[in-house]
């Protein structure tokens, strides 16, 4: 049953529209198999990565901390990517599959439809994070960073996932085709991740630091690195969470506004 058909069914108790859409999208995603296939691939990736890191015999304490940080950052990146792709497909994909009309005919507001789909996309990141916990705990327990790693991963990962889901839903509402939606968000994600590969020498100076702070991805990565590798406190590095938090709020609102304005059949604006 599609989300549109589910929303059109009478529901005793008067469940809000976003909950009905979210429930159906979650069933489609997880009971339909796509979510579990992605989760299996994600778990396999983490298994390979953590096995390589855990079996390094000559690692010193700093390298062990870096191993935990690397695992967490890889998990955050891939989990956010999954959520972004699902969000980017949420509206433009329905439009291309000709199922959007059914959804729009239901007595559910466009905002509720977008919210329900965003929640389903966010669930992919949440599942990825839950799968990450045992790996991070295993790698970090011997050196006493497991708790900090899980807390940092939850905080940074949730903010980045909200930001990227909002971005994906907004782009999906605007895009004329699903291919365009996916292309734009992937390009955007690559552009945001590119500065993480800069060498240390290129990150010196106030200009570079400002750019790293403004970019939610690099700011989040810096926060995780400082907490786990350099053993700084959360409070000490809290300023690096400003841009992820602002991006999470701003792009959630932007995605909602764009979906409310442009969630319609045919070409955007038509």
């Amino acid at each position: 049953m599609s989300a549109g058909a589910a929303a059109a069914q009478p529901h005793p108790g008067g469940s809000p529209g976003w909950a009905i859409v979210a429930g159906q999208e979650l069933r489609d995603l997880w009971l339909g198999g796509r979510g579990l296939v992605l989760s299996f691939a994600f778990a396999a990736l983490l298994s390979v990565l953590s096995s390589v890191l855990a079996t390094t015999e000559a690692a010193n304490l700093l390298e062990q901390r870096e191993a935990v940080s690397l695992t967490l950052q890889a998990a955050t990146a891939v989990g956010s990517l999954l959520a972004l792709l699902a969000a980017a497909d949420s509206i433009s994909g329905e439009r291309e599959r000709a199922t959007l009309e059914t959804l729009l005919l239901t007595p559910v507001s466009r905002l509720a439809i977008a919210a329900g789909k965003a929640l389903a996309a966010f669930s992919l990141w949440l599942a990825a994070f839950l799968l990450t916990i045992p790996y991070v705990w295993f790698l970090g327990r011997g050196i006493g960073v497991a708790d900090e790693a899980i807390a940092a991963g939850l905080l940074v990962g949730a903010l980045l996932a909200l930001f990227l889901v909002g971005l994906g839903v907004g782009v999906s509402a605007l895009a004329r085709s699903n291919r365009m939606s996916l292309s734009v968000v992937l390009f955007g994600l690559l552009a945001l991740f590119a500065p993480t590969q800069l060498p240390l020498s290129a990150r010196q100076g106030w200009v570079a630091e400002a750019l790293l702070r403004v970019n939610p991805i690099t700011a989040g990565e810096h926060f995780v690195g400082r907490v786990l590798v350099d053993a700084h406190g959360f409070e000490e590095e809290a300023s690096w969470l400003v841009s992820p938090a602002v991006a999470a709020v701003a792009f959630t609102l932007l995605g909602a506004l764009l979906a409310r304005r442009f969630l319609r059949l045919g070409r955007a604006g038509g």
Partner: protein
Amino acid sequence: MPRALGTCAALAAALALLVHAARGAEGGVTVVPDRHRLETRLGASVAFRTTIANRAAAASDVLVAHLEILSLDPDVYVDPEDWSQQRTRYLGRIAPGRSRTVAWRIDAISGGRFVAYVTVVGAAPRRQAPAIGEAIRVEVAGRKALDTDGILPLAIGIPAAVGALGLAIRVRRRGLPGRPPPEAERSAVHGP
């Protein structure tokens, strides 16, 4: 006369050697740590100080102090940059008879036996041996804490569990071979 000349030449040579030796350790600069042994645990930080003194009659050259760390165990790799963030200190000139005290901090990121020492060189481009401080023995208790055993069950178990869950859901939705899926059974019982 030739004997006197020979004696003078020998004395002059000896004096030159003495002067050279005195100036060999960066022109009268001495480097003395405040301790010769440090004991700590893996993951802890330890601090020590070195006093750099100018024993010469004239002001020293512009001096640079540098911290080195090495392992006494050939199987333990040491990257000094991981042990200390500030290994180089720029001291400027030291007046004759004066000294400077520099504080150092090292993070014990590997277990085992190590040696730390400080060298001081002058910035002027002339041939002169650096002044080297006495070695500090650093004993770090504790060994590698990353548990390599037990990763395999985790690495195999979690993907297997997710895969099994997916398979179970798929079987339940589509039904076993020869048996209709649950949705078809409900439709047969309750009608469309």
